């Protein structure tokens, strides 16, 4: 569109030569000022004089096109020939923004002007203008025309061509009311364009543009074909590394509303779409829009068109595969309908947080009517926990989605969800569900999370889970059964679970855990008995604990209480100290197991330091294991402050410091 409009500028200065009056020895061209909404030409004079009318000179005082104004445009020729009533010049000069060699021939009878401008040996622009009744036409052709010569004709604040050439022709037909038809057939080579900010730019673009615009009753009708074959372009935030894009379509331009009544767009690596719609050019944006695309390549679609818009979401780094179909209807600035189908799709988070495989989905959404959607996947994972084949039936009522209940195989158990509901409001998405976890073996669970292999099963009830404003909250208590005891998680909340710094806070209460199972799991040295573990005010940042008040204590009740030599050594090392050597030195080395009365250890984690305490105070320390039975052993810790990282290190390496076994 813009290309054609430009040409009127060049054409104008030639059309000024219209009526001619001849006098003795001098021919004077007299032309009135021309004023139109988008241009005006003022102070036009032209004369032909000298010996044998050999000198021709035309001047335009002011030529204005949109915001551009040129003053003193001059066309002159010192060797003009009059030939059968035609004025010819083979060595003329055109002064527009620069002085250029021109050739022209003017036939007053036929009312035809031929003008050719040689910018260089390879670059030639030819203009033929013809007028009279019933109308006029102008045809511009170029061989290797520099596109940057058009810069002056473009409006401000837009992308400007900086390099590149064009070949082809542009023809404009007009009548008394102005332009009636524009036909362009142009090939572009090595085109480069950019705006001042560099956020919209293209380089080395090659392709072809065909355009046919004609005046209709209410406005303009257009038909066009754009073939972008090579070159790269960046249109923030989208980047097209290579050509292969093609658009053909037709439509209209009425006022400032550009319509595509029928269009077909092909994007390399993504697929093809049929589209139509209306675009308000004066900043109004998209008014309405229909798009239909089948068999889109999700990989290309995601990388080229979706990823740049998802940077701050959990979907910022995906590997997408598969095919999709989309029908999309947009009216008055809002989506009214879309119908999305995914076939054999795969969505894998590059950071390993989630993955869905074998996704087949049909989501026929409407903003007014209730619709049913179905999403299936054959497998996947969330935070390394494997998900099995799942079918999610969704009822959609606008941006409110509900699912009656479905179950997701999780490792070797099942996560049963009932009453799932999600809705979107101004503050983003919110959703909630409740459900339960059918037994998952701890072996699988711990392996998936990279924990030491645990025994037992994990099962529980999941009360209402709410997500809103980036925060996930569990209302009520999560109940799990592991190590033959119970684990209750209360006040669990998670902020920005997929953000840069997830925060978790919770209170944990574990009761009656079987020490035998537990110590076997963590290869801690065998212990027998039961313990309660409380973790109050647990705060985790980026999945690392930063604050809590934890305590481990023997459960009330009667049960066998035994502790192995290995376990004693290991417990000792928690507070630091050299128990192993002491045991080895004493007669106790002959005993594999000892009896105990109570075990207790607490840690209050603050600022990376664990403040430790035990069952009861001891002189200069605290009792961790209180002996009982025969042979009995007590462990007393003296170090009350241990760096959390050190503690974890010690748990791993089992070195000893500052704890002495009191051998009784």
């Amino acid at each position, binding site marked *: 569109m813009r290309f054609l409009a430009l040409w009127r500028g060049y054409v104008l200065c030639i059309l000024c030569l219209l009526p001619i009056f001849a006098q003795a020895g001098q021919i004077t061209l007299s032309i009135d000022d021309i004023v139109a909404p988008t241009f005006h030409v003022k102070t036009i004079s032209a004369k032909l004089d000298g010996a044998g009318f050999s000198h021709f000179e035309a001047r335009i005082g002011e030529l204005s096109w949109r915001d551009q104004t040129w003053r003193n445009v001059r066309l002159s020729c010192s060797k003009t020939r009059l030939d059968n009533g035609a004025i010819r010049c083979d060595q003329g000069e055109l002064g527009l923004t620069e002085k250029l060699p021109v050739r022209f021939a003017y036939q007053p009878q036929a009312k035809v002007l031929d003008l050719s401008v040689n910018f260089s040996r390879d670059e030639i622009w030819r203009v033929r203008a013809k007028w009279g009744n019933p109308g006029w036409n102008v045809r511009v052709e170029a061989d290797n025309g520099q596109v940057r010569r058009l810069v002056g004709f473009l409006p401000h604040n837009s992308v400007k061509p900086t390099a590149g050439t064009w070949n082809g022709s542009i023809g404009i037909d007009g009548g008394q009311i102005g332009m009636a038809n524009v036909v362009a057939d142009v090939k572009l080579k090595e085109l480069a364009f950019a705006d001042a900010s560099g956020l919209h*730019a293209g380089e080395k673009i090659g392709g072809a543009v065909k355009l046919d615009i004609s005046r209709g009753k209410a406005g303009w009708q257009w038909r066009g074909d754009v073939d972008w074959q090579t070159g790269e372009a*960046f249109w*923030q935030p989208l980047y097209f590394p290579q050509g292969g894009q093609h658009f053909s379509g037709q439509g209209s331009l009425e006022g400032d509303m550009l319509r595509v009544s029928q269009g077909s767009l092909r994007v390399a690596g993504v697929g093809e779409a049929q589209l139509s719609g209306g675009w308000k050019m004066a900043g109004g944006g998209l008014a309405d829009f229909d798009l239909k695309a089948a068999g889109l390549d999700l990989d290309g679609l995601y990388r080229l068109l979706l990823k740049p818009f998802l*940077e701050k979401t959990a979907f910022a780094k995906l590997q997408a595969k598969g095919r999709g179909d989309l029908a999309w209807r947009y009216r008055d600035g809002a989506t009214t309908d879309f119908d999305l189908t995914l076939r054999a799709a795969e969505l894998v988070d590059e950071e390993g947080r989630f993955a869905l495989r074998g996704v087949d989905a049909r989501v026929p959404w409407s903003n007014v009517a209730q619709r049913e959607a179905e999403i299936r996947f054959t497998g996947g994972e969330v935070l390394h926990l494997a998900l099995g084949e799942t079918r999610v039936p969704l009822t959609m009522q606008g941006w409110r989605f509900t699912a009656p209940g479905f179950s997701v195989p999780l490792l070797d158990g099942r996560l049963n969800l009932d009453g799932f509901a999600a809705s979107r409001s101004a503050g983003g998405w919110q959703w909630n569900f409740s459900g339960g976890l059918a037994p998952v073996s701890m072996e699988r669970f711990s392996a998936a999370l990279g924990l030491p292999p645990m025994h037992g099963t994990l099962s529980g009830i999941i009360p209402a889970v709410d997500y809103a404003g980036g925060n996930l909250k569990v209302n009520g208590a999560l109940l799990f059964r592991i190590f033959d005891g119970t684990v209750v998680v209360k006040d669990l909340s998670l902020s920005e679970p997929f953000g840069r710094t997830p925060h978790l806070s919770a209170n944990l209460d574990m009761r009656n855990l079987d020490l035998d199972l537990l110590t076997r799991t963590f290869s801690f040295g065998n212990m027998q008995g039961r313990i309660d573990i409380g973790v109050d005010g647990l705060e985790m*940042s*980026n999945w690392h604990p*930063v604050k809590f008040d934890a305590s481990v204590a023997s459960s009330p009740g009667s049960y066998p209480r035994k502790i192995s030599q290995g376990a004693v050594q290991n417990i000792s090392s928690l507070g630091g100290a050299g128990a192993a050597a002491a045991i080895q030195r004493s007669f106790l080395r002959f005993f594999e197991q000892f009896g105990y009365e109570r075990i207790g250890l607490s840690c209050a984690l603050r*600022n990376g330091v664990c403040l430790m305490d035990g069952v009861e105070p001891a002189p200069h320390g605290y009792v961790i294991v209180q002996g009982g039975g025969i042979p009995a052993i007590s462990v007393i810790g003296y170090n009350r402050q241990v760096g959390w990282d050190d503690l974890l290190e010690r748990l791993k390496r089992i070195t000893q410091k500052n704890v002495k076994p009191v051998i009784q």
Partner: protein
Amino acid sequence: MHSQNLRLWVVAMLLWLPVLAFAAADLEINTPAISSLKMAMQSRHSQLASHYASGAVGLTRDGLVALRDAALVPLAQRQAVGSLVAAENQDRKALYREIARANGHPEWEEEIHSTFAQRWVQKAAPGWWYQNHGGAWVKK
């Protein structure tokens, strides 16, 4: 009388002590979240440094970074630099929030943000671009 007076001063001094202790205390910046943000930003810096030097990316007056002149970046890399800038800003905002949170004063976020804004500019290498108080880009 004298001794009483003296004792009074000692009491007053002691009461003031928390102020001194407080003023001298360091802010907690060693939480796992801050460490991981710091590491992410440190490794990103190796990619951003050349763009600071070229002037393509500048330090904004509000403690973030911005694509100052995309034209200084080869076309094929502009999108990637845009992503770097977005990721850096996301981390910087998270960093300011985490420091406030780690010190038990989430309401400090804004002041920490503006403290950083000044320090980034102060510590910027010569030749880098930053925004002055009026928002204009200035070469250091």
